[in-house]
């Protein structure tokens, strides 16, 4: 007798249908109109064939950035995050049998704490945009004010997400401008917009233009009443001052650069850190250090009274499933790089971008970099032809070009944002330069 028959018999039933007698006739369906199941061999073969239609950054130099970029991932990172015990486990609700994940996440929090200069870090938000959304509502929880200042020079996607996240609290989002010469924030404009109702100020370092804003360290002094929220690319923190050092209350960022695949934009890793004193107002899961009944060090999820499953509609966030595995990847990645590796990586990114932006600047018709500030690994180029057209031409040379900036700042319609990282060889740079020369 088959397993199923035995089990049905044990239930005194003779068919599977009897298990569904509680489903009213009127709402029943007669199976699904999907193709029948197929073997692993066929499914994998077919999907590979479909996916093969994608061009990848693996075989085409790709200069896209604006949030995520192509970075090197040591093979060991994949080895670890592919481990069954991490990959196939749930949120660590039972700490005794989940110390592995808990410690790895605690280490992630520790790394981000060190990089951001803030002691309290959650074990991830979905991505930078939702981390920003959560930061905005946290600002409200900190000071019960509703006005949030954000840079005009910011990804339109983040702006859109942010506006959805603050909808419930009816917070007001106000944009401040940038300096058209340096690409840094326009302090005058910001000053004119900060008022007593201002809950928080959001600044990105590096910003959408790839510029490392030299004014960031002075914002907290200037605007002590408002919460300072800083958006970062974590690898830049290998050489940049930690936002905690210059007074940030909350740091958010996109952790994709920390050993996580681009994945066509997901999964990513939303970084979220804050000052220890704000910890009970923070959103998301956090792992805390504790001990077991024998006094040995142990870890567990903690501060759950902030969370949805306890506080329900009063929770600091609705987040439940997060991006834990990506946080583990980030831990492994940072562990492999180590102090010198991260510093070196940041420097290589800066140096490579500098080299490329200068070389493009030498090409007739291109203004590069379009902004004078210091850059991390992205920069804006003013192009002679529209960036969309340029990209089509580059593609003919096997090159995936940059982001047309007008999609984020409509006025900058002859501007392209280019990213370059440790992934680009000299040959990749030369190929881009050669192609740009041809089209100019």
């Amino acid at each position, binding site marked *: 007798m088959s397993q*199923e028959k035995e089990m049905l018999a044990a239930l005194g039933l003779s068919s*599977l249908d009897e298990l569904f007698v*509680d489903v*009213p006739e009127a*709402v029943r369906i007669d199976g699904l109109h*999907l193709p*029948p199941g*197929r073997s692993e061999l066929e*499914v994998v073969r077919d*999907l590979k064939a479909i*996916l093969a239609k*994608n*061009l*990848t*950054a693996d075989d085409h130099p*790709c200069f896209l950035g604006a949030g995520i970029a192509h970075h090197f991932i*040591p093979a*060991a990172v994949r080895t*670890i995050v592919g481990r069954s*015990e991490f*990959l*196939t*486990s749930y949120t*660590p*609700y*039972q*700490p005794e049998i989940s110390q592995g994940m808990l*410690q790895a996440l605690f280490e992630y929090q520790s790394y981000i*704490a*060190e990089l951001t200069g803030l*002691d*309290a870090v959650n074990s991830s938000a*979905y*991505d930078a945009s939702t981390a920003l959304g959560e930061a905005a509502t946290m600002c409200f929880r900190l000071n019960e004010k509703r006005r949030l200042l954000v840079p005009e020079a910011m990804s339109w*996607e983040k702006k859109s997400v942010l506006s*959805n996240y603050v909808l*419930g609290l009816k917070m007001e989002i106000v944009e401040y401008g940038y300096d058209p010469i340096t690409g840094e924030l326009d302090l005058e404009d910001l000053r004119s917009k900060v008022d007593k109702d201002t809950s928080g100020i959001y600044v990105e370092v590096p910003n959408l233009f790839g510029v490392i804003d030299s004014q960031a360290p002075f914002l907290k002094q200037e605007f002590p009443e408002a919460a300072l929220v800083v958006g970062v690319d974590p690898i830049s923190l290998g050489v940049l001052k*930690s936002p905690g050092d210059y007074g940030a209350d909350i740091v958010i960022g996109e952790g994709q650069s920390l050993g996580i695949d*681009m994945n*066509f934009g*997901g*999964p990513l890793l939303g970084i979220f850190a804050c000052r220890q004193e704000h910890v009970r107002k923070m959103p998301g899961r956090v792992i*805390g250090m*504790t001990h*077991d009944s024998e006094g*040995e*060090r142990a870890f567990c999820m*903690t501060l759950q009274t902030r969370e949805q499953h306890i506080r329900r*509609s009063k929770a600091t966030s*609705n987040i439940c*499933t997060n*991006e834990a595995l*990506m946080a583990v990847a980030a831990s*492994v990645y940072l562990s*492999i790089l*180590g102090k*010198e590796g991260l510093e070196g990586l940041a420097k*290589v990114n800066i140096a490579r971008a*500098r080299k490329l932006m200068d070389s493009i600047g030498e090409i007739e018709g291109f203004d590069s970099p379009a902004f004078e500030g210091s850059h991390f690994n992205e920069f804006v180029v003013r192009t002679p032809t529209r960036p969309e057209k340029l*990209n089509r031409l580059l593609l003919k040379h096997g090159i995936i070009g940059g982001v047309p900036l007008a999609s984020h700042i409509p006025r900058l319609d002859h501007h392209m944002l280019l990213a370059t990282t440790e992934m680009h060889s000299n040959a990749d740079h030369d190929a881009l330069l050669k192609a740009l020369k041809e089209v100019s």
Partner: protein
Amino acid sequence: MYQQAKHDRRLIMERDGRSDFDLPFLNELTDQDAVVPSGMRRTELDLPSLPEREVVKHYVNLSQMNFGVDNGLYPLGSCTMKFNPKYADYLTSLPSVNCIHPYQAEETVQGALQIMHELELALCEISGMDAVTLQPAAGAHGEFTGMLLTKAYHVDRGEDRDEVVIPDSAHGTNPASAAMAGYRVVEIPSSMDGRVDLEALKSAMSERTAAFMITNPNTLGIFEEDIQQIAKIVHAAGALLYYDGANLNAVMGRTTPGKMDFDIVHFNLHKTFATPHGGGGPGAGPVGVKERIEPFLPVPRIVIKDSKYKLDYDRPESIGKVRSFYGNFAVLVRAYAYIMRMGGNGLKAASDRAVLNSNYLKKQLMDVYPLPFRELRKHEFVVSAKPLKDQRGIRAFDVAKRLLDYGYHAPTVYFPSLVEEALMIEPTETETKETLDEFAAVMKRIASEDPELVRSAPHNTAVKKVDEVYAAKEAILSYRAFKRRGAGPKA
């Protein structure tokens, strides 16, 4: 007997060595190459430096102190911890999945767009909805998206509704998501038989009600038989009916939220469609809607134009975006592969077997762990350790911890709260009868074990019972904070 591995538990920050990481260009760097505004230069970076060998050892050993589905039964009710097939892991290891940038031109990502489009269609069929967005990153994110859609829908109709009604047995994310979208949450108590109380529902509904959020089957594993009346009540009040898809695993091929007249539904691909949960995430929480809500879906929408897949941003009524880019693509690929592998027949068989396994296991346990409410359950069920507590001083919590000693993950405990000493058990369809029989035997055995042994469990795990109160009181969330304190638990 089972015993979990136990390794050195120093933090990676507490180890000593020297990194052997290397990068191109690193040796060529000069001081002038990496200029940073002077006020922005970092002066201290206190990270460990270890050879890859130490890092791999550290994390391989950590992993052995973690329990996943691949290690054994994971009957965590509501979480649907089924087997995660390995071909999906393989697919996401391909550069054609993991090495594409979301801002690539459409013509360079036709494969990705095709898979996403076909997944949307498959989810429409499975849920009986008219359109699906893949953007939300998780179930709760899908709920939030659903609430934003609800708001957009009512606003578009010129209605100002500010309440969402939710049963008390709902998952915490439901009220939290509604609140985040600015709704006032109205909780209604369950009926005496563990279902939606139609009277309570009726009296909660008003012209202020934007939506009613439920799962079906509910968190007790009971199918809401009155679903047609519920839908009528809700729609009569002008509200929308929201389906929390976390329990969709019970009914694929048997019914659909669409057929049950739901307006909005979220899916948990990391539950129903076998994508791994990664120790907390990533997941994916697509949202399906009926046609009249479709205009409000997040941008971009994937459309076909001139036989090419395109991203359509020109959607004036759209709520915009709920996260960057298009969703957790790598998770979507896994789910799509799973759906293809199973097929329509396979998905139905999966639900059927999930329900069979659940009812079979329930039957084995019922005499020792009584089952409140009706007997027929769907993919999960809730039993009570109340008699055990009363008679032997063994709580649901203790049973859960003791199960760890036998190499099982624990069920969900103390949820839903309408059952005292609740143990919420979901075996899923990927478990064999043998596994269920063995688990049932252990559950019964625990009930007759020395209560002290059970209460002091777990004994065979990497650490003994963890002090959660200390953790919450001290809130040590990073090594930095630990060092600053100058004292704390030592490895």
